[in-house]
């Protein structure tokens, strides 16, 4: 009999921090006082903040118990489509935790932080080489901030050309961050549909591209997991009308060492270092969203930039067309170090291998689940494949039920109900770090769930039953928000 990872076990309850605390306890070793106490004027000083007081052991147990309520990549397969939940190498943690990096003040004089500036310069070179683009800024702190950076650069570029533009083309399969980032720059999104094959047609883009349009935002491979085969033609159409091409690099894990974003005609591309380059997602951040740009966009990159002057690394602000700064300091250095560590550990051959195996894993799952679940677009996919609940609907079972039931089998569910263009989407991205045995277990789980949907659909509607909590009432949470204790 197949043994699935999902099981039951003793899970401990844990109250909220302040329900545990008792006045008078402390979990902190205060440094010895070696200077005189100087009272602050009573008008300025308030009451001490009302924070829970607990011993070190209570604090540790609290968080260890909470950690055990979480599913993570280190716990098991996490095939969340478009999120690239690959294994996060542990040596990366060692590298960014070194006292020289962890303790570094961001405003150190340049001569006292040469190691940090060198790493920034080296990582920029790596990312430029990997994408085939000209120059890089590591400053954006997340993918969405990278998108905003790109849109700000589009805006600055067109203004510099003397012709500000008002619209931006965004395919209907795009992440919601694309139109939201464009809106921050005052752009009106012009949605364009994908064709029957799930990709963009050049004619569709040509029909809306005009000289009021700043450019297009394209995720490639797209969110259906398909390579935009006409991207070069589309880029030519956009460039011919003076527009620019934004590449959302969320799905870069499929094409490392294979596609050349420079040749394709991409002007700005953001990378998610927490996806493609293995840095941990942290339960929702911090990540990093560097932007890579073509030659015409380079003058608009954020400042300061690292340059080499007289044999040393220096900060330079000498870029008068720059859009300015996105973060107070230089970006999420702790994340950048991990990504650099990953690239240096793998090298060119292995990075290409990463994409090949990521694509192999997705196609293997696609082949094995095809027929059991409805495949939205039956074409060779890249690093992720998109199914739907169409075959389960006759049993009155939904994508949500399937996802919840998968938890009981010991897997994190795929991304669901996205992309919006596939109703009831189940978007599976296994990543390259999952072995064939794990994929087989996942496939068996999905097949078992499909059988349950037919024979015992109530089992799915009640799922999950093995997690810390059963289904949670999200409607009540939104209707009467309780956002603090």
């Amino acid at each position: 009999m197949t043994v699935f990872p999902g099981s039951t076990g003793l899970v401990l309850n844990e109250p909220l921090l302040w329900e545990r605390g008792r006045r008078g306890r402390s979990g902190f070793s205060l440094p010895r006082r070696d200077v005189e106490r100087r009272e602050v004027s009573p008008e300025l000083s308030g009451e001490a903040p009302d924070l829970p007081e607990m011993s070190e052991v209570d604090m540790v147990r609290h968080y260890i118990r909470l950690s055990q309520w979480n599913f993570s990549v280190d716990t098991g397969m996490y095939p969340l489509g478009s999120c690239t939940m690959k294994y996060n190498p542990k040596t990366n943690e060692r590298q960014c935790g070194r006292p020289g990096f962890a303790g570094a003040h961001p405003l150190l004089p340049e001569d006292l932080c040469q190691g940090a500036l060198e790493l920034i310069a080296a990582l920029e070179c790596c990312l430029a080489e990997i994408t085939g683009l000209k120059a890089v800024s590591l400053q954006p702190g997340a993918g969405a901030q990278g998108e905003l950076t790109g849109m700000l650069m589009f805006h600055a570029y067109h203004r510099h050309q003397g012709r500000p533009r008002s619209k931006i083309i965004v395919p209907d399969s795009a992440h919601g961050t694309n139109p939201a980032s464009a809106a921050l720059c005052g752009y009106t999104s012009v949605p364009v549909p994908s064709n029957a094959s799930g990709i963009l047609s050049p004619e569709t883009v040509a029909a809306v591209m005009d000289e009021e349009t700043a450019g297009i935002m394209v995720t490639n491979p797209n969110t259906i997991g398909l390579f935009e085969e006409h991207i070069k033609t589309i880029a030519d159409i956009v460039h011919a009308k003076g527009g620019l091409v934004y590449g959302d690099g969320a799905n870069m894990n499929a094409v490392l060492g294979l596609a050349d974003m420079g040749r394709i005609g991409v002007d700005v591309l953001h990378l998610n270092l927490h996806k493609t380059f293995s840095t941990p997602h942290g339960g929702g951040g911090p990540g990093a969203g560097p932007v890579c740009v073509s030659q015409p966009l380079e003058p608009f990159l954020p400042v300061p930039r690292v340059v080499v002057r007289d044999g040393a690394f220096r900060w330079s602000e000498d870029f008068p067309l720059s859009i300015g700064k996105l973060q107070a300091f230089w970006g999420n250095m702790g994340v950048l170090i991990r990504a650099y560590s990953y690239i240096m550990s793998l090298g060119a051959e292995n990075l290409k291998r990463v994409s090949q195996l990521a694509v192999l894993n997705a196609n293997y799952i696609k082949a094995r689940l095809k027929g059991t679940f409805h495949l939205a677009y039956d074409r060779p996919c890249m690093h992720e494949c998109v199914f739907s609940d169409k075959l389960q609907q006759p049993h009155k079972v939904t994508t949500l039920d399937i996802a919840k039931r998968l938890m009981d089998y010991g897997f994190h569910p795929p991304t669901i109900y996205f992309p919006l263009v596939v109703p009831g989407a189940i978007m599976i991205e296994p990543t390259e770090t999952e072995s064939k045995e794990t994929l087989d277990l996942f496939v068996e789980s999905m097949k078992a769930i499909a059988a349950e949907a037919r024979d015992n659909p109530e089992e799915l509607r009640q799922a999950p039953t093995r997690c810390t909590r059963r289904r949670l009432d999200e409607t009540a949470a939104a209707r009467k928000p309780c956002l603090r204790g």
Partner: protein
Amino acid sequence: MRYLPHTPEDIAEMLEVSGTPSLDDFFAVIPPECRRSRPMALAEPLTEWELNAHIDALAGRIAVAPEFKVFLGAGSYEHFIPAALGFVTSRSEFSTSYTPYQPEMSQGTLQAIFEYQTLATRLLGLEVANASMYDGASALAEALLMAVRITRRSAVAVSRAVHPLYRRVVRTYLDPTGIRVAEIPFRPDGTTDPAALGNVQELAALAVQSPNFFGCIEDLKAFADGAHGAGALLVAGFTEPLAFGLFRSPGSLGADIACGEGQSLGIPRSFGGPGLGMFASRMQYVRNMPGRLVGETVDLESRRGFVLTLATREQHIRREKATSNICTNNSLCALTAAAYMACLGGAGLRELAQLNHDKAEYLKAQLRAAGISLPFAAPTFNEFVAAFPAGFRDTHRRLLARKIVAGLPLETYYPELPGHYLLCATETLSKADLDTLVREVQS
């Protein structure tokens, strides 16, 4: 490669199931004109041993304590991080999970963030805090955009005593929006000049930072009254939240939005990032707030649990009509800040804040006694401005060779303040360190 589990047999079997002859055939969909014309030119892969040596060498060329005495604050503060804190926050169930889209198997992150939101509101004296933003500077930019949405007005005023790098981020974010940004000057005592506020028409928000960039405590109450009188919101920024262990919170003084950098709360400086954008406001504005929010609810068996909520403000639902393009938070940093506050407790945070204040007061007194001018008279927390005599630039440079970073030269940011340096003293510097600095700057 140790992260790639596939054996040649696995690959052969999987290719067969996929009906694809070779790995290369998967990529036939990439047209030739989109492909790389040559392999990536990257360094040969390093073994773990070689990687350790390489990165250790880079890290070795950065000046850090205890070898160096770094009297720098200016938005990034050195505070002691207890061993227990690093231990719990490095649990990979927290660090290797993603945004808690599936609440049943993410209750650990969700409860931890709910706790963070709660402790953040208590520290900042406001009613609701989001699950965090990228950093203090982008949080300030988002706060001003939020105030514009709420008031439907078209101008904001930002004090020149707000961190200069934060003001640059605000300009970047607001540049394409057409929102006017007026700068409010500071007075001779180092605090923002309230008199200048009256000149700004269509004012949506006034942004003041306290403690401000010069370390001075601002009269937030007066600014709240001024802003409200003009029909605008007061956005209270900060870079050093530890100050609210000792000084009154922005919310209790009338701020409508408080936002700033939370790095001080147990997060390593890490050359400036990742940090923690803290963001709190009055409850009446919650639907205009950017960022993720965690809310309490119940499960099918009526047990308490937590979910992401009020998502209808967000980009994945509202797309271009969202309150922000922000997609995630700096979740692990928020969890760290909450665990740090729990380690200290209210009384501990108070005592640690008092000690920071006292260290800086001691340094001020010693410098003053040595004849160094402290130009700004307003009360300060753990950093302050000193004006050194002409020629101090050489002394500053000479001290670097003696492994002392004697503050941040302000002339770069404020041309009108030549010879002025921003000095910071936290609990991590001993009296002996402070005495050494005073002795050395005189020599």
